[in-house]
């Protein structure tokens, strides 16, 4: 990545768009504090995450960041509800279970609470992942090609769900996609090519 200067406002929805290998996922990892740049500064809220240790970044993630991955990244040994309970449990919230149940019902999986990921379809798995992302009451949500592994109909439902919940919770959403239609639903699209910012502007919608 080189010469990237980018600001994302609270409650904004931003799409990072680019061809495969352009560096969009890397940018997302950096913004989310999953990775560290060799040079430069990144701020998340008030905190400069580039100055934090991995340990401090982990704490920050737990506090204010949620994730949705292309490959879902659910724990195979946990049921759907247990996966969604994780963030709450990490924060030692007493109501982690009831909160997780509500969220799963909200994403339409109230009837599959105790199913294991391998017993769920791809779309269902991604809905569990979305429920988990919102379970942490994160201020900012990062989604890496959330529909990349899904057919277009399922993908569309997932995206509707993601934006719906995003509005409901007033979350900031940063998502990586190469799907122009998805990007068009965001407030703003950031175009990346060969690790550089080529365009940064409001979408037409």
């Amino acid at each position, binding site marked *: 990545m080189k010469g990237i200067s980018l600001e994302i406002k609270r409650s904004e929805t931003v799409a990072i768009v680019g061809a495969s290998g352009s560096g969009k996922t890397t940018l997302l990892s950096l913004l989310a504090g999953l990775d560290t740049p060799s040079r430069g500064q990144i701020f998340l809220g008030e905190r400069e995450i580039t100055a934090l240790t*991995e340990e401090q970044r982990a704490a920050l993630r737990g506090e204010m960041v949620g994730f949705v991955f292309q490959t879902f990244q659910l724990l195979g040994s946990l049921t759907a509800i247990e996966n969604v309970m994780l963030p709450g449990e990490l924060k030692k919230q007493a109501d982690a279970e009831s909160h997780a149940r509500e969220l799963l019902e909200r994403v339409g999986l109230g009837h599959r609470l105790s199913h294991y990921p391998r017993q769920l379809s791809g779309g269902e798995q991604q809905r569990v992942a979305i429920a988990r992302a919102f379970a942490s009451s994160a201020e900012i949500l990062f989604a890496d090609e959330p529909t990349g592994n899904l057919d277009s109909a399922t993908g569309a439902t997932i995206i509707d769900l993601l934006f719906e919940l995003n509005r409901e919770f007033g979350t900031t959403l940063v998502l990586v996609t190469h799907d122009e239609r998805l990007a068009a639903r965001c407030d703003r699209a950031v175009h990346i090519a060969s690790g550089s910012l080529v365009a940064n502007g409001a979408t037409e919608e």
Partner: protein
Amino acid sequence: MNLNLILRFLWRDWRAGELTLLLGSLIVAVSTVTTITLFVDRLQRALHQESASFLAADMVIRSGDEVDPGLLQNEFTAPLQRAETLTFLSMVFSADRAQFASVKAVTDAYPLRGELITGDEPFQRGQPAEGGPPPGEVWLESRLFPALGVKSGDLLDIGVASLRIGKVLIKEPDPGGGFESTGPRVMMNMADVPATEVVQPGSRLTWSYLFAGSADAVSDYDEWVRPRLLEGSRILGIKDGAASVGRALERAERFLLLGGLLGVLLAGVAIALSAQRYAFRHFDHVAILKTLGASPGAIDQLFLLVFLIIGVLSTIADSAIGYLVQLGIVEILSPYIPVALPEPGIRPVIIGFVTGLVCLLSFALPPIMRLRATEPVRVIRRDLDSATVSDRLTYGAALAGTIGLMWWYSQDLWLTLLIFSGGLAALIVLSVVAFALLRSGRMLGMQAGSAWRLALAGMQRRGQENTLQIMVFGLAIMLLLILFLVRTSLLAEWQTQIPADAPNHFAMNISPADVAPIRTMLEDNNIHSQPLFPMIRGRISLVNGESASARDRSQRYQQDDEEQSGPRASSGRNLTWSATLPEDNKLVAGNWWPADYRGEPLVSLERDLAQRNKIAVDDEQVFTIQGRELRARVASIRTVSWDNMQPNFYIIFSPGALDDFPSTFMTSFYLDQSQKVFLNDLIHEHPTMTVIEVDAIIEQIQTIIAQVTLAIELVLLLILISGAMVLLASIQASMDERLKQQAILRTLGASQRLVMGSLLIEFCALGFFAGVLAFIGAEVTVFALETQIFELTYEINPQIWILGPVTGMVLIGLVGMLATRKVVRVSPTIVLRELA
């Protein structure tokens, strides 16, 4: 698929690090087995040579009469070397003095094994001699020179022959320890025996016929001649050289063998684990190959060839490594190993090679076979299970491979089955327990709030995998504990057997008048001795009012072997009296009399004697001593440690009981090599006493036991190293799942303390369960081993109840943390990307 493609495939796997663990396990497995086998093989042959020197041969026929020459010279003895010795007690005369001596006449080939050490002056260290004295010459033990007032070149009369005194006899390989070593040694040539005319009808002689040759030739001859020998002849093999050395040697061999067996087992487990992981990581690979049109047959071909190439190359390399490591060990240890090790043979290298291949086939093949069954649809749906090759085949192959290897290796089906079934039974029972333990009270959620609950919840959730892992850890720790326990009890037994200052001379036939002067003489020369025990021949005549000899006769129909059924009542025995309980004796019933007791005659009996004859405390027995009767009440029953090289008695009377009977006295004492000339003064001043010298034998026993001990410690160390490798392989094999879980927790913001804490707790808990399993399994197996194989008395071992679980926790906790520490060091994206 052509070879070129396969080689490229192999190279890519290697470059990607997929083969590292598998190769590592293979290398450790095969090198451990090769190293142990090579080392044990060399050590065993060295010990055999050393022990053979005890007999001066590989096999000896000992007899009181001349053995029929037809038995000694035939097609069976043709491939063997032969020598003869004749031992007798005789007075020998110098110009002006006489001395009682033990004369040994030897043929020219003597000794067949070991060395005769001779010198030019008495009391020197000496050098090895080529064969015994030539005809017309005698060699004398050092102390005979001052005792007889002679020097080299003088004449010595034995019987009616005059022989010239040649060298000084410093050490002979087969000093013997019985009656014939009652006096100092004079060695002469067999050809001079007729001239002495000492061999007359009725003379007390010991003929020894010595044989040496290949193990097969010796055992063929042994088998043939044994049933043909007359009563009064005995065959001595290497293991009979000295009873305690024979036992020590036999047990040591079994121990080394056991060590090797456990090494094979550990190696197999390590290979199985890494092959499993290799296969697991290649499911996707195979699925993709299949979508690209590879048939199951082609997949089989590919992986079989890959494995064959890995197997053959690494085994060859490993055998070489094993050989070098073993050379290194020998090099490092050579100052401590007093015997020269013979050159390593080829057999251990073959064993290592075959072990590697068999392990690879029986442990690694089944998981690889699963690869062929991978469905191409896995490319799309990764979570499809690929297990279609039956588990029965997998486990069956591993079991068959293990048993086969162990059996081939030990050549002992009984030992193999014992270890195998003991271990297996313990594992099955305990894994059920472990599984039940893990499953009890399943908790909801991941309980991610605290490291404790997170860890335990995680363990329960992966109950099946964890049970398997506990079994593997448990197996490894159990094998180590078994080896440790057996080693400890073997060493303990050997060390108590002969302490460093064990008496090495027995003095007997001491008249009462000589007791005080001899005691003073021993004290003046700072010689540590046992008390002087009075000794009177006598026997029990009435057991509980019944004739002792009639009893023995009626029992004789059932069993006549004293070794098996215990000492007979009516046999003549050495009786003594004592105010105090001898050292090393332990009371098992009744009370010892007070030191100043002077009442009615009491007697204390040895336990086996009392048991065989059903004698209890307070029973009254009648003894016949020198034709007179003595009545005594049994006051106590005690055990005696017969092999402590001290005067020991079946029957001890209370003070005063034997005052009416004239007695002689005996004692035993310890003489250093430098103090031996003291014997001359002692015998010169008290010519009626008899001294039996067993110092040479004791010294040899101690040397061998020290060597065997060292060998055992070494093998334990080697096994420990391979055990640690198994643990590492096992933790590695389960690492992906753990890493993924912890990385996801990390993305969700879990703290380092939580992640590492839960991992530590999980590993320690696994280690703890494994340790519990291990100590229970070890107790059971050690019980079987010690009672069935090593003939030791089994005692429960509370120390491993703690040692097992603690070792498990520390080892697995430590290795686990080392292997997983990158979870918190590295950013979670990297971990997740690597695992994807």
